[in-house]
């Protein structure tokens, strides 16, 4: 088969397909629904900006703290940073262990209260009934 024959065969693929009479109405019905639908929610950049800025600042400070460790040569920096993190964690643990029983009870109660805003809405929600039509008689 020559290229010219292929050209002719492909060019002659002229099945004149036309839209059905109801096509335009169907498209317009869908377009009207689209127009009535609320626009998609935009990302709240204004509200998120302080959080993003704080995150970036924290990251920059953390990196600068690691990089500017005094007296540390390049190879020793990561282990020293890890050691510092371990030290801070240990201090926090010591601080908690130093609390007396009364403070410990208060902290446990506060932790338990944080579950309230999560569980309360779940208790208020009613289970959705099955609304499917009953088939058959």
């Amino acid at each position, binding site marked *: 088969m020559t290229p010219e024959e292929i050209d002719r*065969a492909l060019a002659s693929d002229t099945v004149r397909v*036309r*839209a059905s009479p109801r096509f335009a109405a169907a498209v*317009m019905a869908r377009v009207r629904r*689209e127009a009535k639908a609320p626009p998609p929610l935009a990302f709240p950049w204004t509200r998120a900006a302080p959080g993003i800025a704080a995150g970036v600042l924290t990251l920059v400070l953390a990196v600068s703290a690691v990089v500017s460790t005094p007296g540390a040569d390049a190879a020793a920096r990561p282990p020293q940073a890890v050691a510092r993190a371990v030290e801070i964690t240990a201090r926090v643990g010591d601080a908690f262990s130093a609390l007396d029983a009364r403070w410990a009870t208060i902290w446990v109660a506060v932790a338990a209260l944080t579950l309230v805003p999560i569980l309360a809405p779940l208790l208020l929600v009613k289970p959705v009934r099955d609304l499917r039509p009953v088939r058959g008689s």
Partner: protein
Amino acid sequence: MTVDDGAAAVDRVLRGDVAAFAVIVERWQDPLVALAYRFCHDRSRAEDMAQEAFVRAFRALGQWRREAAFSTWLFALATNVYRAELRRRRAPLVSLDDVADPADSLDVAGEHEDSDRRAAVRRALHALPARYRDALVLFYFHEMDVERAAASLGVPVGTVKSHLARGRELLRRKLVATLGERDTRLEEARSDA
């Protein structure tokens, strides 16, 4: 509809006159359905795909940069929708090697020879890799206008030309094998009769 008419309807829609979009639909429904049909060869599915293209066009109407004609923008958008749809819900395509020999279903008199030949070409076309198939589909849909095909595909003219050349070569090789065998068998059948 001229380019200005298209722009006028678009302006009205962008000002909130949703009904003005009907002008665009009326004008372009047949070409968009026909293009969809060239991709999927299923009338019902072609209308679904064209409807999706119109809805996407409605949503994206504000993104039409008026440097190009409205039709160029609309065809490029529709082509993207159709190609994505084919990728998402790929019709069961046959391998080029599995393209049926038309002689198997052809009556011996060869009355339907031309239509079978076209059907064989179409089947082989749709078994091509997507980049070659799309270039060929758009090229012949746009009445062999490479620049319009390139605009619809959103690729340089040179890319379309190379895809056309490669696609035609793949088609030719396969059709020589399948139709060549068929023609030989037809000749044999005729001589036996």
